[in-house]
């Protein structure tokens, strides 16, 4: 039996080989992950930023209850989301006619449900924590209601960017949803995380390490881009 360190070294060597030899199965999982996570984060932001702004900016009956619900959904287990989306999009489910089970759109729906509470909760907190003088400053400078809304979101941009990074981190690293509603189909719906789970079960650490390394690189690249964006928007 090989000692554990040898396993790891062999895995690392194989990981570099797979990445630099353009292994098609490895790159298929990478591209699927990038496609589906991009789709999911865009939908989460489109739906979540206005909802979070509304929740943070306005007072309405039941606001506290909505806030508690959104905060509770932050710790929604991914397998439960996977289960719910599976029920919705399976043939007998209400969205069965769409016929999207075991496709990228199905994973994107599930991941959007995963990312949405994060974007809503963090955007609401960002808007709530804005200086109370902001609204009157904008009004006295002559902004109309819509301009007040847009500028308020812009003032909270750094916190909203942080919300986007947090949500993307959760989306890109989840396994449950991709496995349950994606089906882990090679060349189609196999993502980095489902591939790591599968290859590790088969004892093939090389591909697992290679994909884990790519996942870390994606996280690093996203943070780097946001850092640059942060600097640019400060100017």
């Amino acid at each position, binding site marked *: 039996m090989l000692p554990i360190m040898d396993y790891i070294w062999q895995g690392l060597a194989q990981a570099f080989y797979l990445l630099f030899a353009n292994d098609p199965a490895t790159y298929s999982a990478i591209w699927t992950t990038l496609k589906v996570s991009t789709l999911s984060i865009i939908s989460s932001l489109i739906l979540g930023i206005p909802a979070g702004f509304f929740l943070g900016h306005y007072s309405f009956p039941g606001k506290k209850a909505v806030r508690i619900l959104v905060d509770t959904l932050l710790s929604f287990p991914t397998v439960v989301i996977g289960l719910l989306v599976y029920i919705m999009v399976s043939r007998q489910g209400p969205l069965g006619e769409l016929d999207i089970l075991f496709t990228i759109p199905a994973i994107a729906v599930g991941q959007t449900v995963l990312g949405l509470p994060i974007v809503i909760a963090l955007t609401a907190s960002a808007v709530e924590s804005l200086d109370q003088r902001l609204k009157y400053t904008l*009004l*006295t*400078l002559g902004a109309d209601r819509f301009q007040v809304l847009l500028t308020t979101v812009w003032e909270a*941009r*750094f916190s909203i960017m942080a919300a986007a990074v947090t949500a993307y981190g959760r989306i890109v690293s989840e396994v449950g949803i991709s496995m349950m509603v994606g089906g882990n189909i090679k060349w189609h719906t196999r993502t980095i995380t489902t591939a790591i789970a599968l290859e590790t079960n088969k004892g093939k650490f090389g591909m697992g390490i290679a994909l884990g390394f790519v996942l870390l690189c994606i996280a690093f690249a996203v943070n780097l881009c946001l850092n640059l964006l942060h600097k640019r928007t400060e100017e």
Partner: protein
Amino acid sequence: MPNLYQLQNICKTYKDKDVLQVESLFIYNKEIVGIYGSNGSGKTTLLRLLSFLDEPSKGEILFEGRLTNHNELYLRRQVTYLDQSPYLLKRSVWGNVSYGLKVRGISSKSGQIHEILDIVGLPPQEYARRKWYQLSGGEAQRVALAARLVLRPKVLVLDEPTTNLDAESTKRIREASLRVREQWGTTIVLASHDQDWMDSISDRGLEMQDGRIISTRSKQ
């Protein structure tokens, strides 16, 4: 001087308590009116009503002879209010000064911005590109004043504009206020604890106590 504001039987209530009661007040065009009084005397409440940032619980405010509604965008664009600790947008000095022009759909010309920064005593070459967090308290106050002056408002409302400022900033704010009244005919309403400073700038002083105007005095 023609009438700009006319306040009639104004009452402002917060949590069932009357915090402001003004039976009658006239403010004239191009006038500089100073309001003084202790904390809680109703100065800020009155200034916010005059700036159309708040509405009275009872009574009427006429502006240029017309009955007003504080939600009217036209009115808010005639009057601009500067707080004692103003909020600067998370942008450069240029971005802050040009914001009001931008929301009015007016493109900001560099000459215009530079002129205003000069008026408030901030050399444009040195300050225009600075970020909001690179300014001292006095500089931030002057940037906020520039952001209001660039709009050439009909009325400039200043609420304790010199609190916590150094002598240089206080002097600059006085000079800028007098200059815009002279140059553009701006009416100025201001409140300050610094009565000497206020007397040196205003044409008329109003003393407030417990939400009421208790005395008026005009400069001879």
